[in-house]
Structures are given as C-alpha cells and as structure tokens.
C-alpha cells in the first residue's frame, strides 16, 4: 500500500515536471466555510454571494496568474463544530490553496488549530480581536476588531464630555467578546462603567435592564454591544422608556436592516461603521469611494438586494488573497502567506489595509466612520 502511494507520488511529480505548462492551467482552489444558514445567516449569506459574484467576475476577466479561480464552499449552519469538520475536508480532500471565511468568531477559532497545523493561509471574516491577537502565523482577518469599535465609541464620548456610561451587551460570542474589550479599554479613555447588564440574542423585551441602567447613579450614556435583531429591540424599548441619554451601538448593527427594524426610535443613535454603509455620501476624493461604489453597484445588480458591510468583509478578504497570489507569483502556501503579511495600502470596503508581521488585520481606527441616524438616514458625525 505504502509502496503504491510512493510510486503514485513519483509518477505525479514526474508528470507535473513534464507537463509544467498544462499544470499552470489548473485552477486556483479557494476554500471557504461560511454560515449561510442558521442564526448567523444574515452575516454568512451576503458573504457567500459576494464570493460567488467576484470569483465569477475575476474569472471572466482572465483569472489570476492566467489560472481560473475555483470556489469550494461549505455551509457550517452557524455551528462552530461543523466549521471544524469542513475545514478538515477543505485541507485534506479538496486540497485548497487558501481558505477564506469563518463567518463568526466561534467558527474561526474552531478552524484555527487545523489551518495552523496544515499551514494553509487563512483569512477570516469574523470580528473578535482574539483571532489576530496574539498573532498566529497563518491567520489573518478583514473586519475591524471589537476593541477598535469600543475605542472609536469612547473617542466620540470623550469629545462630548461623557465619562460615566452603562454597558448593555448580548450574551452571544460577539457581545461577550465586545464586553471584555470594552472593559479593557475603558480606563484608557477615562471612562467608568457604572452599569454592566446583558440580554439574550432572542430576548423580546429589555426594559428591565434599561430601567436598571437608567437608575444607575450618574450615568451619562449607554453603549450596546450586540448583533442582529436584539439591538433593535433595545432601541425600541429605549424610546418606550423615554430615555434621553446618548445611545451608542457597535458595528455589529451597521446595516440598513437595523434602521428598518427600529424605525423612528433609531434617531439619534450613533455607531462606528465601515464606509460601505454610506457609499452614496462619500466624497469623490475619498480613497475608498471608487471601490465602495463599484462593489455596491455590482452586488445590487447581481443579487437584486442592497449589499451589507458583512458582505464587504468577504470582498476585502478575496481581494487581499488575489493581490497576494499575484505578488507571490504562485500559489505556494508559504509565499502567499508572506505576501499577505506584506499587503500595503490595499483599498477595500472596510478601509485601507496595511499588514505587518504583528498586525494581521491591517486597518487603523481611521477606517471606522462614526455615524448618527438623523431622520431615518445615516449621517457622518463630524
């Protein structure tokens, strides 16, 4: 059995050498595991649509290094354990050249050990800081971290003279990681958390928690860290209780869906967001304007729906991968990894990426825009 494998391998090597030209026409295999169904579907669905759209687009324009891209995709159904199994399959059976995705932090961390061991470059679309800190050799990510969201929010609070706030975080992985980071950086900005409450992602009423925060001594603002419909419930309850304190949300709800679900109650809410959300308001001189407008147009045309910032993370990931493969001049995993780490000034939908050996995300705080909902529209806070 072993002998046969050896012969096979030798034959394969010989064939590759002899047919070097033909081998070059082999497609570049891009593996991805995303949460296209299940609770995280609103994140994973636009990500898969983005990958499908732009892989097809790149192929129609001649591919990369003269080779076509081939997307090998699995849906983890929003279960981290499945993400692990599918990653194994991508590495061992599909023999992919690079892996994109991992929609949630949970899924990404379940995939982490496998890609590190198999030494495959991996670009995640998930938020938490733990993915890139401490830096792992083969792992990169495209969205801003939750710590940056907290810093951006605190920065804005400081400008308004706010120092005592109530924190309301979701019991999901995203919310709890956000809570930890918020607590960690609060002192740096001279901010005290006078209330620290939580709610479940499926809760239908949070007036009890909000009443408690409202009655906390000296509270000046509320910061909510959550995803999906939970923050919309919070926003409605906020209006119901007639609370006038400044209300901040995280980048987890930087979507038009949040605005639509909350209705007029969202007016006055501030949140950090990638530029994608205000594609039509960007100045022509903005470095991201062209990329964001082109992405928005292509996505809306192909899928007949508005793009979300979550899909934008996938776009950025794919572009970083393609850029790195081009610079590496091959799909050699080590070379591609080094090329990703040397990404400089690559303009994406979330910001301008410049990675270093110690920064595997590559975005600065400037990439976040502080937005406020005014009369049902997003407005940039100056």
């Amino acid at each position, binding site marked *: 059995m072993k002998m046969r494998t050896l012969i096979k391998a030798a034959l394969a090597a010989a064939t590759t050498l002899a047919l070097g030209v033909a081998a070059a026409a082999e497609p570049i295999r891009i593996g991805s595991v995303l949460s296209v*169904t*299940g*609770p995280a*579907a*609103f994140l994973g*669905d636009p990500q898969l649509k983005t990958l499908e759209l732009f892989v097809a687009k790149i192929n129609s324009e001649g591919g990369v290094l003269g080779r076509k891209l081939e997307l090998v995709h699995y849906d983890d159904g929003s279960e981290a354990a499945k993400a692990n199994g599918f990653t194994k399959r991508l590495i061992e059976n599909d023999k992919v050249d690079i892996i994109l995705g991992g929609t949630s932090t949970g899924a990404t961390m379940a995939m982490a050990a496998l890609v590190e061991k198999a030494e495959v470059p991996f670009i995640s679309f998930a938020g938490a800081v733990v993915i890139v800190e401490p830096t792992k050799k083969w792992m990169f990510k495209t969205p801003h971290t939750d710590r940056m969201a907290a810093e951006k929010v605190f920065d804005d609070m400081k400008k308004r003279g706010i120092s005592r706030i109530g924190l309301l975080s979701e*019991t999901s992985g995203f919310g709890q990681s956000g809570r930890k980071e918020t607590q960690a950086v609060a002192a740096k900005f001279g901010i005290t958390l006078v209330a620290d*409450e*939580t*709610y*479940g992602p*499926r809760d*239908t*009423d949070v*007036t*009890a*928690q909000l*009443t*408690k925060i409202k*009655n906390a001594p000296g509270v000046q603002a509320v910061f909510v860290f959550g995803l*999906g*419909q939970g923050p*919309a*419930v919070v926003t*409605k309850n906020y*209006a*119901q*209780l*007639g609370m006038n304190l400044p209300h901040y949300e995280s980048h987890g709800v930087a979507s038009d*869906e949040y605005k*639509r*679900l909350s*209705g*007029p*109650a969202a007016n006055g809410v501030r949140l950090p967001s990638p530029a994608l959300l205000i594609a039509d308001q960007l100045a022509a001189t903005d470095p991201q304007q062209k990329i964001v407008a082109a992405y928005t147009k292509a996505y809306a045309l192909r899928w007949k729906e508005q793009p979300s910032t979550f899909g934008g993370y996938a776009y950025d990931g794919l572009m970083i991968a393609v850029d790195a493969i081009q610079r590496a001049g091959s799909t050699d995993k080590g070379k591609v990894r080094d090329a990703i780490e040397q990404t400089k000034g690559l303009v994406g939908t979330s910001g301008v990426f410049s990675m270093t050996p110690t920064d595997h995300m590559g975005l600065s705080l400037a990439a976040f825009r502080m937005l406020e909902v005014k009369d049902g529209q997003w407005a940039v806070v100056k």
Partner: protein
Amino acid sequence: MLSQFLQFLLSGVTVGATYALAAIGFTLIYNASGVINFAQGEFMALGGMAAVFLANAGVPLPLAIVLAVTVATAVGMLVEKLAIEPAGRAEVVTLIIITIGASLTIRGFMQVFLGKGSHALPPFSGEAPIAILGATLLPQSLWVIGVTGAVVLMLSWFFGRTLTGKAMLATSYNKLAAQLVGINTRFILLLSFGLAAALGAVGGILIAPVTYTSYDVGVMLGLKGFVAATLGGLGSGAGAVAGGLVLGVAEAMTAGYISSAYKDATPFVLILLILFFLPQGLFGKKATDRV
C-alpha cells in the same frame, strides 16, 4: 422605587403574555391527543412571517392577517394528514418526535422561501407608550394580553359547552371508547391541529410588532411556551396563561433585582422547583385511572 418595580412587572407581563399565547397552542393539541406538539413555535413563526410577506407584497394589513392565519391553518392540517395520521396507532412518544421533524421541515421551508432576515409588522394601534405611575407599556402589549384573555375564554367555552370540544376531550382520554360512541377521532385530531396552528399564527402575528419575527423565531417561542404550559399543568388553558405570566414576571424580576446574567436560567430553575413540589403543574388535575 415603585416605578422601577412597576416597570419590571409590566416588562414581565408583556413577555409573559407572548409565552402564554405559545403555551395555549400546546394545551390544545395535548387535550386532543396527549401529544406535545413541538411544531407549535413554527406555527407562530409561520403566521408572523406570512403576514409580513403579504403585507410587504402590498396586501392591506387586515387581509394579510386573515390570509396568514388561513395559510398556517392549512399547514397545520397538512402536518396532521401527512405526518401524524400515517403513523396510525404509534406511541405518543413517536408522535412527539414526528412533530419535531415537522418543525424542522417548516422552519427549513420558511428559510428558503421567506428569507433569513428579521422583519417587523406595524403596530396595530400606534407606538406611543402608555405611562402608568412612571412606568411605560406599549399599546401592542395590550393587544397581546387582551387577545390571550379572549382566547382562554373561548377555549373554556369550546371544551366545556360544545359537543365538538367535549368530543375532543373524550378522544384524548380514551380513543377507542370515543370511537365506540361514534366520535370521528380522525377528524377530531385534524381539527385540533388546524385550531392549534390557527391560534399559533394569531399569536405570532400579534407579537410580531413588539418582538420582530424571523424564520427561526419559533425555536425560542416553542421552548418557552412548552415550559409555560408545563408550569401551568398541561391541558389547562388558564394554567397555560398563569404559567406564561409567572415565567415572564420571574425573568423580568431576576433581570431587574438580581442580574440579567441569570435571567435565562430562571425558567429552568422554576420548572425544576414546580415539578418537584407540584408534579401536575399549577393548575393540572391529578390523573385518575378508573378500572
């Protein structure tokens, strides 16, 4: 201090009323067949999602609601016809497992055909909160509480005063005996699924403006509704409502006075305590077997 307590109470009642609506659906099918229908949450999700879908398609809200309830009723009957009835004289446990399968199927269909996003229905009578001694309540919550009350009254009339209702109870006590006295037990079972689905859909639509709706909203509703129904004593309409309210208020008080981190543990602690000291639930009757 009082206004704070009152706000916790109103928050609990609002949430509790939605649990109660879910619990009543469980009660209905349990009364007809002894089966705990785990697809009940999906009937609620289906009602809410269908109403949103139709309303977005331009159908006026009242008509959209009627149509959504009709669709859900039809689906409920289909589940009985296609999944429960062919199982014939299977054990109750088997039937319960079939309903879990039905719930997964319905959820899957909704995900594929109605989308994965969250949706809201416009509230029936505005969004201006009602202030009561410093606490506030949304008008939609009054709709939920009012309809829940009306449904309980109607059900107690149905089971206590109509022949069909009594036939349904008879079927659940002893199917064979019910058949012997001329009750069409097949029809009764079909009817109970249709009714439960209709009730579920009404509930799902009523709470959609407050809680939002999505294809998977039924998971939480089904779980909490089941806990509420068990708390109240399975099979009792008033018990289901009491169970729902106790659960909702207990959750809100835990979040308010202890910590919101413990809120989700409350239902499970409650159900352990009640089943330990009152195995029949708050309102359940002791089962008696006559020989």
